[in-house]
């Protein structure tokens, strides 16, 4: 048990991921304001991206741009570029989702005059 806790603190990035993910999830579940729910949703999305970037890291490696073109490439010298590219794509997807979500929020506000989930549900009945 103690080992597991110590191992966790060896990996601050993963710990951060778990904290941000659960925090976002908690906000999504407990807040009634629709925009606050979106903030929680965005935290969840971002935490996953943070995790994805974290797994590309290597000790003693640099950014994935070739240091020079003459030596043969040694993979251990560079961090893995693929997760970064995936993250970029996932950010674009996340932004598109957030855009649609904000548009829906705006439409809900225009229709019901409120962003509170309870009140919207009351007006729906």
């Amino acid at each position, binding site marked *: 048990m103690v080992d597991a806790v110590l191992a966790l603190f060896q990996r601050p990035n993963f710990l951060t991921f778990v904290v941000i993910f659960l925090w976002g999830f908690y906000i999504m579940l407990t807040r009634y304001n629709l925009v606050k729910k979106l903030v929680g*949703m965005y935290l969840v*999305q971002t935490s996953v991206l943070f*995790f994805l970037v974290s797994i590309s890291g290597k000790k003693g490696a640099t950014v994935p741009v070739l240091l020079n073109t003459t030596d043969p490439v040694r993979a251990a010298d560079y961090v893995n570029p693929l997760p970064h590219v995936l993250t970029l794509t996932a950010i674009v997807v996340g932004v598109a*989702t957030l855009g649609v979500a904000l548009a829906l929020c705006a439409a809900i506000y225009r*229709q019901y005059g409120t962003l509170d989930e309870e009140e919207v549900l009351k007006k729906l009945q």
Partner: protein
Amino acid sequence: MNEHLPAVLFLLPLFAAIAMPVVCLKHREWSRPISLTVLSAMVVVSVLNLNSVIRYGEVRYAFSGWAPPLGIEWVADGLASVVLVALSVLGLLALVFAGPTAPRDLGGRVVHFYVLILLLIAALTGIAFAGDLFNLFVFLEVAAIASYGLVGVAGGKALFAAFRYLLLGTLGASLYLLGVSYFYAASGTLNMADMAEQLPHLLTSKAVVGGLLFMFIGLGIKMALVPFHVWLPDAYTHAPESISPILAALVTKVALLGWIRIIYWVLGAKVIIYDIPVLLLVGVLGTLAAVIGAVLALMARNIKTMFAYGGISHIGIILIGVTQGNKTGFAGGVFYLLNDAVMQGALFFLAGALVFQYGVRTVQDLGQIGKRVPWLTGALIVIALGMVGLPPTGGFFGKWYIILGALEAHNYVAVAAVLLSTLLTLAYFVKLFEAMFRQRPPRSDILQSELPLSCKLSLGVTTASIVMLGLFSDPIVQWILNQALPPTL
């Protein structure tokens, strides 16, 4: 030329969706002919693609010539190609149905509607063909964003349903992405075929087990498996009449197809993690979904809600079929998936026609139209036969093979669940018919109003297909057994 057909299938609706806002800025009335043309072309290309796959075997398409596993790969095998034919035909029919209904539902937003529908179809094509886990995520999200837009585009009550759908759908997508990154961290690859070679050595790795769990919950939300189904009934009930058929027929089914790909093509059918067979675990969830969905359908008052819950229970039945771990069950499950897509399309065409033409939304109101619209009643009877699963329809043969597969696997609980769900389905259709034939004072406006031809056409073609799929069930199932089975079964 043949090997480019999958890419053509995807690019047709995508380019049309991108070009449409520009082209239709001044000529709103062009949007419908353009999308009908594109979808007709898609039907032709998908049939050509299926034909070429049948003749020359599966196509592995490497985008821009970058060979997998480094490049992005698409796999047009038997399973994907046959689902693509169903997808294009149902998409075309949904657009035909939307002709008269969409302008009334959406007013000036018809162009938005066509753009989103084309985007949705392009993304679903991508999900069916994807041979790469991250690619699958991107297309899942594009399809999801298009669906959120489609549910909410008409405003009104649908807005809040769309918002809830968005929250849950995004949570599901995030969990799926988390699962993919776990898999990537463990195996160092994203290509499905490549990963299938790596995974057998890694099955005890906690990263793979955790990743599988997250991926499964994520896709479970997307396909509305029972504990995660809460977004679906509201979204499909409140979505405009012209939109709910295409969502109900295609979105959850194609997510299920993506999941079948992962479980059979990436993991391998017989995979056992910590002494638990993964297939059994999912089969249990399918069993629950089949029964609970049908019970909830029985309790529903709104016709569209009832049909939406029916779809949830059928997702469970398909899952029971594909998780038996033998060929008969898998073929039955895939055949039932095709049938269910057609039946859900037909059901929501019918529900849409009821709301659009007669303003009938709840089961009780059905008595008002009753015997005065004989052909609508006829269509409902045929669809009911299919949903319950009586012999001349495809639903019967799908369930038959699923039950045979479950018997072969000695899984009697699954057999009982399919039968129980069948009885419950019968019960909720009896409830519908009882309401329909009860004597009620007729409404005077029913007699003179006749449904537009295109609505009749969509409903007629899907209803006929339910019977046709039953009549030709034997060659289709044989073909699935020969050409669409996963390599690991």
